[in-house]
């Protein structure tokens, strides 16, 4: 029965329809292909009650995801915590704030587990035996892990200078890790050529229409976890801009299929200043994205100089009354520490970008202090520990002696309770 929900692929530019194969670009005008659904049928098939009765994973929104049969990959992925962040709200000066914590995602601690769950479930349906990706790290981790779990062979191609822990987090699964001397955009270009030549399922190239839809589940979960309503503001980090456009699409679809009533929402984008092609275009009032040839930022997961969805991201922000900011390396580190010290959540550098940009957006009133907001945290801090390490104090060392301990804490703000 599920078969009829997902209809076909459609060019986002000219609307030409394509069969549900491993194709991602319109043959006529080179526009990206996107999954299209029978919303009328979905509207009659799902409800809040139906969704709430299902398991706590991303597939509870199954009708709005582009596969034909039952999902086979990522059955424990998603439904990550939405944390009410009162202490961070106070620090940033906003009434109501939540953190959507995909640092806690299964199995590899980033939002990419969602997109890979969809891409590989679809890859299985299409019969691929080898899967691959171009990645700034998180996607590689998730492809490596979830391919291993499904018994698929995988190749992950990454820029050679990624964080050690992100490289290790791919290697451990026995995947083929290929480091490329070059920036992400060059890795991606190479993958395009490989995808055209080998019969592999590249999750972010020829399987991109399926992969990208997985990001919507973060948006659906926010809606459900807020008690079936939209946050007035959502701040999303941007690399290619895909997550931002898909969270926007999720909110629109939740309205379209009758899960929530029409209500206003604004989507805001966050980039690193060292790689800010989308934020630069937004601030200049254009949707023409000028590529950044040499990204320089500690937020390596966001270092995409030629963002494939930049145009759509700018327009999603503009049409929703949102805005856009970017953050320097120093501000990113401050953002990571602020989130950790106020909420006990350790985010990777991209999370520091989101917090730092949210801080600017609130301080300047683009997110009004009296409103509600959700910050999308997309990956775990241990993945980029080396970026933060130089900015944290070393532990204080003493011998196992009470006298030394008491001398050590004499100037601290805590005092031993009277025995």
């Amino acid at each position, binding site marked *: 029965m599920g078969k009829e929900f997902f209809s076909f692929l459609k060019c986002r530019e000219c609307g030409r329809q394509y069969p549900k194969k491993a194709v991602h670009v319109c043959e006529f005008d080179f526009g990206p292909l996107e999954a299209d659904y029978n919303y009328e049928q979905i509207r009659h098939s799902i409800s809040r009650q139906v969704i709430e009765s299902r398991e706590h994973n991303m597939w509870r929104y199954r009708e709005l995801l582009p596969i034909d049969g039952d999902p086979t990959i990522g059955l424990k992925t998603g439904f990550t915590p939405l944390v009410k962040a009162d202490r961070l709200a106070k620090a940033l000066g906003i009434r109501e704030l939540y953190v959507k914590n995909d640092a806690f995602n299964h199995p590899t601690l980033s939002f990419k587990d969602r997109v890979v769950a969809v891409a590989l479930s679809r890859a299985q349906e299409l019969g691929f035996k080898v899967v691959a990706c171009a990645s700034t790290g998180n996607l590689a981790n998730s492809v490596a892990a979830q391919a291993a779990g499904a018994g698929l062979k995988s190749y992950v191609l990454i820029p050679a200078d990624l964080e050690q822990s992100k490289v290790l987090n791919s290697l451990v699964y026995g995947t083929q890790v290929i480091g490329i001397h070059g920036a992400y*955009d060059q890795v991606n270009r190479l993958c395009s050529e490989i995808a055209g030549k080998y019969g592999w399922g590249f999750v972010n190239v020829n399987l991109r229409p399926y992969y990208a839809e997985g990001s919507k589940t973060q948006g659906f979960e926010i809606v459900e976890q807020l008690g079936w309503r939209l946050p007035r503001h959502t701040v999303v980090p941007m690399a290619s801009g895909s997550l931002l456009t898909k969270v926007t699409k999720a909110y629109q679809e939740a309205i379209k299929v009758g899960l929530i009533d029409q209500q206003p929402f604004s989507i805001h984008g966050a980039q690193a200043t060292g790689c800010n092609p989308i934020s630069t275009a937004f601030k200049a009032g254009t949707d023409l994205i000028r590529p950044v040839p040499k990204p320089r930022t500690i937020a390596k997961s966001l270092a995409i100089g030629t963002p494939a969805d930049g145009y759509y991201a700018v327009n999603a922000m503009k049409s929703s009354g949102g805005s856009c900011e970017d953050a320097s390396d120093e501000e990113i580190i401050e953002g990571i520490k602020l989130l950790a010290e106020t909420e006990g959540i350790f985010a990777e550098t991209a999370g520091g970008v989101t917090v730092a940009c949210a801080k600017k957006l609130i301080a300047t009133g683009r997110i009004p202090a009296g409103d509600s907001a959700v910050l999308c945290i997309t990956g775990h801090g241990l993945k980029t520990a080396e970026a933060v390490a130089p900015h944290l104090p070393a532990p204080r060392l003493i011998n196992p002696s009470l006298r030394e301990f008491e001398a050590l804490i004499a100037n601290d703000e805590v005092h031993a309770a009277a025995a």
Partner: protein
Amino acid sequence: MPIPVSIPTPLRPLTENLDTVEVEGATVSEIITALDKKYPGIGERLLDAQGNVRRFLNIYVNGEDVRFLQDKETAVKAGDEVSIVPAIAGG
């Protein structure tokens, strides 16, 4: 002076499978008009209904994206190279 224009794989069925063709023109716009005259049908693949270069197609003059030059009015002269390259999706 004829200007060499490199053609991406998906458009080669229109250019007798040639990867590089030569046409005359003093601007990118004239080059596109000349291309369409020589290889009918290629024009609508390059320009949208409003006559703008399609969003997911890049035209480079000596490696520079014409969107950041003078767009379709970008001048071309003898010795220049024009490339047509579809945008790379991904990321």
